[in-house]
């Protein structure tokens, strides 16, 4: 597996162990037989101060914190409205972004970050719209992470940018644990993924601000019960607005665009409600 080794290797045994005095040697033997100290990392309910390690003991919380910093940089320092799209490969994320680009006012400065395990296909498609696009190849990683976004952001002039579209790697599992700091996260499922796609990936659905059911025109042809998809969305994430689109013809995209614009307005420098750790809210 692709893995950047960041751990400093530590020698297990002192090279001069053989010369240790007998008492020390006995101590070491005792250690190996089980006499051990345990350090429990606090939940913050200890009466002593936590060490730096304690505070970082939750790696997923650290990732959420990092996403929060990206959100601060984008939304609050530079006024960039970032929209992330998550969903399976082939669900229509790129096509939806293209449809939104078609509808964007000419003076809107838009950029895009596209995550893919390999290749530039999606990035190339979006570049045809004359916008700056950063392609992030994640290698064997299955999702974009805040670190990858941070690197990609250095390629943009954030002062100039009004909107940033982020297309995550096609994956409905991992992004649930890896928020990226976008103001709005849009889930894209398509009817061709079957009518149980929502029930199979509920944690990701709960981490989104809007759900798009795409390719509704194909539902009947592929035998997908749209009512089941709707019911599952309502049960898993009752507050998440749902948009039904056929991105190939552009049907339903206007409604999604209007919703996104309303979020841009809501989420300015003022009146920002920071409900970021609500169960269903991804903005962390």
């Amino acid at each position: 597996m692709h893995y950047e080794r960041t751990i400093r290797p530590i020698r297990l045994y002192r090279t001069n162990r053989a010369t240790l005095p007998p008492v020390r040697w006995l101590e070491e033997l005792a250690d190996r037989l089980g006499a051990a100290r345990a350090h429990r990392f606090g939940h913050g309910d200890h009466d002593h101060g936590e060490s730096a390690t304690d505070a970082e003991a939750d790696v997923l919380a650290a990732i959420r914190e990092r996403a929060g910093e990206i959100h601060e940089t984008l939304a609050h320092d530079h006024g960039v409205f970032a929209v992330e799209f998550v969903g399976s490969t082939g669900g229509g994320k790129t096509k939806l972004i293209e449809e939104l680009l078609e509808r964007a006012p000419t003076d809107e400065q838009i950029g895009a970050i596209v995550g893919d395990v390999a290749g530039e296909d999606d990035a190339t498609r979006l570049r045809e719209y004359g916008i700056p696009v950063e392609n992030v190849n994640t290698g064997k990683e299955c999702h974009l992470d805040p670190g990858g976004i941070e690197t990609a952001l250095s390629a943009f002039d954030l002062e100039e940018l009004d909107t940033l579209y982020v297309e995550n790697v096609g994956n409905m599992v991992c992004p649930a644990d890896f928020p990226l700091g976008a103001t709005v996260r849009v889930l894209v499922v398509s009817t061709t993924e079957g009518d149980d796609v929502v029930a199979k990936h509920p944690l990701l659905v709960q981490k989104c601000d809007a759900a798009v059911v795409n390719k509704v025109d194909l539902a009947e042809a592929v035998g997908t019960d749209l009512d089941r998809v709707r019911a599952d969305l309502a049960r898993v994430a009752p507050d998440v607005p749902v948009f039904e689109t056929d991105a190939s013809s552009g049907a339903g995209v206007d409604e999604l665009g209007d919703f996104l614009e309303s979020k841009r307005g809501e989420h300015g420098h003022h009146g920002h409600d920071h409900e970021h750790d609500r169960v269903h809210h991804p903005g962390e």
Partner: protein
Amino acid sequence: MHEISVASGILDRAITAAEEHGADRIDAITIEIGRATHVNPEQLVFCLETIADGTAGEGATVRTETVDPVAVCDCGWRDEPDDLGLVGGFAPDVRCPECGERTELVRGRECRLASIEVPEAGDRTEQTATQER
């Protein structure tokens, strides 16, 4: 599926903690994994054991504990939320059973290094400060 990056984060922290305790070997690592995450315990253990080779964590016993979600509501309700009873997946109900408002998960979304065990050996004068924390 992202167990490798999570494992490397956990191992990093375990090694730092061992250093803080003046230990150059880790005997055991316990990890708490929230149910409302997609971290797979078996895969995480496997990844951690693999990348620990050649570090102070080599050979450490790796244990995982599952953390059930705990939700709180502005109305004062705090409890384990209902799971939605989905066949294919798990998700907590995001609504408060008392007042119907949205709740917030305060537990269940973590993947945290819960404890490490290190040898009782070494320079005792250095250890008194950090022992039995």
